[in-house]
């Protein structure tokens, strides 16, 4: 966990990048026979308020990359900085909110108290927490479920609660690891639209992992296409579709971008359609 470097970006950078990875390698079980190289020489800079999606075939290390930014694992080589500080410091300062493919709600807490968990750990008062969780449950469209148990909610609703929890402390950076991966197509598109609205309202930087090409194109400012074994950045597609609306998904420019990303995935990845869930 100590791999995050101290040399890069420690100076008073005028406009610190939200996330900066330079020369990042990640080897699991390093030095042992079963060692696997998950990431190799990854350089990536995410600007403040940017929405960046990582896409690639299973095992390309996109989730590992996200976990490195979150400092849930450390790099074997290279540096990871978040808002100009080492990833570890950013984690301890609770600079980011995170959501995973599973909602991971705690079934012994009510929906509202799940949302309030990060605030409890920040030492917010009860009244402030209550007010904030009410605000967030409004934001994700679940105001009437505050007192319910997570088990009483559908998968999509649980995922919205998990997103509310990730937003609770008002983080400047949102890390999302296939948060809509286990949902049906309809729920998925609704939550994508919701995420775009939330992001517009909060102005947060988002790093998003997915294996759905349309999802990546619809949500992002930039799509980072990765190739597998070892995970590398193969291509970065800038997406400029302007304001996302219902019609965005049917616009020709949208399809052009989807094609560009698909070509990039096909060109570098040995397996054609990277659709298998992880």
């Amino acid at each position, binding site marked *: 966990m100590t791999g995050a470097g101290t040399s890069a970006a420690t100076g008073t950078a005028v406009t610190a990048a939200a996330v900066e990875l330079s020369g990042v390698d990640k080897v699991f079980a390093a030095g042992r026979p079963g060692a696997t190289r998950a990431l190799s020489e990854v350089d990536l800079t995410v600007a403040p308020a940017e929405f960046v999606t990582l896409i690639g075939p299973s095992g390309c290390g996109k989730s590992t990359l996200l976990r490195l930014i979150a400092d849930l694992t450390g790099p074997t080589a290279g540096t990871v900085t978040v808002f100009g500080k080492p990833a570890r410091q950013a984690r301890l300062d609770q600079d980011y909110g995170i959501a995973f493919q599973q909602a*991971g709600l*705690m079934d012994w807490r009510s929906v509202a108290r799940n949302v309030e968990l990060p605030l409890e750990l920040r030492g917010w008062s009860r009244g402030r927490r209550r007010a904030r969780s009410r605000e967030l449950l409004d934001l994700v469209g679940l105001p009437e479920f505050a007192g319910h148990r997570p088990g009483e909610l559908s998968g999509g609703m649980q995922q919205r609660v998990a997103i509310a929890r990730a937003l609770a402390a008002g983080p400047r950076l949102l890390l999302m690891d296939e948060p809509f991966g286990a949902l049906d197509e309809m729920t998925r598109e609704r939550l994508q639209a919701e995420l775009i609205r939330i992001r517009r309202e909060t102005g947060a930087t988002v790093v998003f992992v997915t294996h759905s090409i349309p999802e990546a194109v619809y949500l992002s400012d930039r799509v980072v296409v990765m190739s597998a074994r070892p995970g590398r950045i193969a291509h970065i597609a800038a997406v400029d579709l302007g304001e996302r609306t219902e019609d965005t998904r049917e616009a020709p420019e949208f399809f052009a971008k989807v094609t560009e990303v698909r070509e990039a995935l096909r060109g570098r990845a040995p397996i054609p359609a990277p659709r298998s869930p992880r």
Partner: protein
Amino acid sequence: MRDRLVRVAAPVVVGVAVLAGWEAFVDARRIKPYLLPKPSAIWHQIRLNGADIVEAARVTGANALVGLVAGGLLGVLAALVASRFRLVNELLIPLAAAVNAMPIIALAPIFNNMFSTTSTVPRRLIVTVVVFFPLFINTLRGLLQVAPIHRDLMASYGAGGWALARKVRVPGALPFVFTGLRLAASLAVIAAVVAEYFGGVQKGLGTRITSAASNTAYPRAWAYVAAACALGLIFYLGATLLERLAMPGRRRVV
């Protein structure tokens, strides 16, 4: 509503049928009362000794309860310590497993000699030791089962080991604690009754059972056995009720 009726009625019907069958069987085969008395004879003894049965059950019940609370608290506490320190965990688990395999009730005569003959301490001590293990093992299992996603989340909040214990481990272990408690509640009564078989204060259900049996008053002995069954049931139901109160609407581990 109908399900509920069936659920209550079914065991009652079975119980009555068993008692009636028992009565008829003893009558028909002319079985001697010292082998197996008739339920009606046992019931007669229950009514005859009502006040003493209640008093004996109160004494044994108090021993079981004190032991259950003491052993339960110790078990949970030990599990908390063991889950927090890996070394303690590795030392305690094999020890606990070894001691658990021992017939703890065999310690009763030894404990009796350690205290004066008028003391209830040895009996309560036996209950404490018996109760300790189911609570220790179950609680520890619960405490060590942390979902990886919860571990990641807590790490993302910059939370340390102590916060993880308070917010995740302990509440997550609660269903396991109550599984242990339900097991221990019945064990506590068994241990309290059997501990009385080895002498000491002449009070309680176990003492009454042995003295009635040695006076060949078998229906009376059975009357006290029935009271011991009822006491065990009360303890079990008490533990179940406590579980419902502590975790309304939560999943339970069977």
